[in-house]
């Protein structure tokens, strides 16, 4: 079991490093495929979107507190608060909501 976890960690490290290192080491020119460049451009948005929702609903053990936390995070980031403020703001709201229940 432990060995399996360590193998998983090593595999994760390898597949995290590969996309970081390959272009840096080998690519000297701009990619010419517009499709591929556009595809890559949208990856962060799509990946973060898919990872956030609906995952966020199950992140606090209580869907209603998660929804309220998500709303607060959306509002704070709409007004371009920093990462730390948005994260701490959402944590505090979720904590208060759970405390009141």
């Amino acid at each position, binding site marked *: 079991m432990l060995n399996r976890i360590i*193998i998983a960690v090593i595999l*994760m490290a390898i597949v*995290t490093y590969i996309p970081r*290192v390959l272009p840096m080491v080998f690519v000297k020119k701009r990619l010419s495929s517009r499709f591929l460049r556009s595809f*890559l451009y949208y990856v962060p948005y799509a*990946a973060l979107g898919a990872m956030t929702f609906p995952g966020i609903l199950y992140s606090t*053990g209580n869907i209603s507190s998660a929804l309220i936390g998500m709303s607060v*995070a959306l509002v704070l980031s*709409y007004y371009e608060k920093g990462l730390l403020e948005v994260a701490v703001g959402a944590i505090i709201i979720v904590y208060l909501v759970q405390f009141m229940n």
Partner: protein
Amino acid sequence: MLFPKKETSEVERPYSKRNPSKHQSDFGTDFGSGLQKGIPIALGYIPVAFTFGLMAVSGGISPWIAILISLTNLTSAGQFAGARLIITEASLFEITLTTFVINIRYLLMSLSLSQKIIPETAFIKRGIMSFGITDETFTVASLEKHDISFGYMLGLISFPYGGWALGTTLGALICSVLPKALQNSMGIALYAMFIALIVPSAKKSRAALTITLIAVALSSLFNWAPYLKQISAGWSIIIATITACIIGALFFPREEV
């Protein structure tokens, strides 16, 4: 470029050289300048890494494995997803593929930085620099006016790496002491950070907003629709991401990326 942050204005560099390739690289100066730029990133990482340590250990992963993950992966989304899959005893293939797909975005960032580093930078130095590419270090580095040197990048990634490890260690060790209600509340930190990364960019670009919403719709579909909901969370992220990006590339192709 991907995630414009408020610090943008501070990124104006004292270097006045118009031709960036002529920038004289001094390791000490560059390293110091990088270190300084890394401090705010490191401060932002501590609570998120703390949450990671907390999440991993409360899910049954031992503290030293959680710290090992942070030291070897140095990535938020990928290692959260990977750790969650380890906890649910997903297959090694699923863990690897999910982590990889989540990290595909680094291809673009690395590609973009590869155009910006001093061309003579040695192979091995490029290999070391690229380990520290994250959403945040990439954003700061790519906004620099001058070419990126090995010293600068090394400086830039030092504090964030330390902060990531420190936060994870604290979260992993404090886990059992914190009241359950607070532990639960901290579960939302990573997602709140994702939202803080996407929303400011998405509100400036209709295409980016559309692609984000398509991905959200698809992953919701895989979560709730009959039959489709049998697909695991890992695969649902992969399929939703790739589909949304293909739609983006087809309907909103970028002129210059």
